[in-house]
């Protein structure tokens, strides 16, 4: 597919990408898997809220309170529609993916998992989709198994099915790996886990920003993602849940907004989603998320994905003959826009530092996936990750930067 995104037309909509770095270098931002840059439209939506609409929501009947509540709820509805969900009540606003997954563990997990129950995760999970389950497993004496990752960076489906035979109560996996770029067959995996009787959680942190996600089609029980990786502000994230599960679950944190009634004897919980949203939320950020949805839709998720696919292939091409460079994970055609690699004899920190001096931002380390790095027997990798505003020129710059790295260490 030919990219519909013209060279730096998109980049011009992101103020930070126009600012030089290290005095006079062009910023080459290849760290969007960590967090995406924000387009002017999103930044302005938050400023406009503070300048014209700021008030607390879901309380008070003055004009601003009503306008703020409406703006926040419109953002929720937009976000729901963006991921193929017709009932906006199924969108719980959290701070980020990590909080969304913790919410499931603390509420659904504590209520429904019992000693000896099995949780199935995969070897390619982010710490956010590991540690909350480790904590729960310790508390409730659960066992955890990990679906193996093949040498080519895909999941070992035979092993997945073997684990499903053991009737796990919960299966949780990432839609797309933030290290390997692998896009998992989420629909089939969900279907098979459901057949085995498991509740399915999908970590969509690297999926929703990059390609069209339709939760009605995928049909997981829970789906988590972060606003900040999809051009939205930090501090706002999403947990989607199936309505019957959300209704049955106990609340998460206690406080304002999550109650219907409080007496000296106790409290009754509010309806979904407010039951899970204690206290004043990130209102401006929620509205910013709505603006990010509008922005991404104005370009089109299919166009964004096609652009990233084209750039990923280009990245593989320009990196192909870099001496000692080894990309981990699947081939360019079978992954999203994340390329993690090792350079023989040169530590990723040194790679990243020298690239930084050229204005190129990449990430070096384990990318919050230490077990996956252990699986591949490497302490760390350098990761270049792509988004809609990247161009082939960015990847040419990466290539030149790597030549410099090799030159210094030769």
């Amino acid at each position, binding site marked *: 597919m030919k990219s519909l995104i013209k060279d730096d037309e998109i980049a011009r909509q992101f103020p930070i990408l126009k600012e030089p770095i290290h005095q006079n270098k062009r910023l080459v931002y290849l760290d969007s898997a960590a967090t995406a840059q924000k387009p002017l439209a999103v930044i302005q939506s938050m400023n406009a809220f503070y300048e014209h609409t700021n008030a607390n929501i879901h309380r008070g009947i003055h004009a601003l309170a009503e306008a703020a509540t409406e703006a926040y709820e419109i953002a929720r509805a937009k976000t729901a529609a963006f991921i193929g969900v017709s009932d906006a009540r199924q969108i719980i606003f959290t701070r980020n993916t990590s909080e969304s997954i913790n919410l499931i563990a603390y509420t659904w997990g504590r209520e429904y998992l019992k000693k000896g129950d099995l949780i199935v995760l995969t070897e390619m999970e982010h710490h956010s989709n590991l540690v909350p389950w480790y904590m729960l497993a310790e508390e409730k004496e659960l066992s955890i198994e990990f679906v193996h990752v093949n040498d080519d960076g895909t999941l070992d489906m035979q092993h997945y099915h073997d684990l499903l035979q053991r009737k796990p109560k919960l299966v949780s996996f990432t839609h797309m790996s933030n290290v390997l770029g692998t896009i998992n067959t989420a629909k089939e995996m969900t279907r098979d886990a459901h057949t085995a009787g498991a509740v399915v959680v999908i970590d969509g942190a690297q999926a929703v920003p990059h390609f069209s996600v339709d939760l009605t089609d995928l049909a997981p029980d829970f789906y988590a993602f972060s606003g900040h990786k999809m051009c939205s502000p930090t501090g706002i994230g999403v947990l989607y849940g199936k309505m019957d599960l959300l209704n049955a679950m106990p609340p998460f944190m206690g406080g304002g907004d999550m109650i219907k009634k409080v007496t000296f004897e106790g409290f009754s919980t509010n309806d979904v989603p407010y039951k899970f949203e204690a206290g004043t939320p990130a209102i401006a950020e929620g509205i910013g998320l709505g603006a990010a949805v509008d922005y991404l839709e104005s370009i089109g998720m299919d166009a964004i994905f096609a652009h990233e696919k084209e750039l990923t292939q280009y990245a593989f091409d320009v990196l192909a003959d870099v001496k000692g460079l080894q990309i981990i994970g699947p081939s360019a055609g079978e992954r999203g826009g994340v390329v993690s690699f090792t350079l023989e004899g*040169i*530590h*990723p*920190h*040194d790679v990243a*530092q*020298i690239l930084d*001096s050229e204005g190129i931002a990449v990430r*070096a*380390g*384990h990318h919050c996936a*230490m077990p996956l*790095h252990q699986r591949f027997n490497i*302490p*760390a990798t350098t990761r270049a990750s792509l988004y809609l505003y990247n161009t082939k020129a960015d990847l040419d710059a990466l290539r030149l930067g790597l030549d410099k790295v090799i030159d*210094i*260490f030769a």
Partner: protein
Amino acid sequence: MDDFYREIILDHYKNPIYKGKLESSDYEFEDENPLCGDFLHIELKTDDKGIITDARFDGHGCAISMASADMLLETLIGKSVEDVKQLSKQDILDLLGIELSPVRLKCALLSLKVAKAAAYELEEAHDDLVE
């Protein structure tokens, strides 16, 4: 930048003198920097007066952490275990002779932390060892 990767640092990184293992050692310790996955093991051999007669390090990490280990061990030979306890952050920075950001400072100081923990015969390294 070309300053940062000074010839001397690259030299110690690429051709370390003290990388390896001792036949036997009197002090040893290992630790890692979880942020980077740097790992460092240091062994010291002393005579009966507590003077360091030989030293080795092993591990993996960035040029800064590995070069700093090699450079540090080079200066330790002939010093006493008590001297190691007195080492400060500034001693390492003087050895490297470069400015470091807070993140890279951790890389540089891993060797100090491990060497001091070895000298104190600790079970566990503490951040205040590098002050």
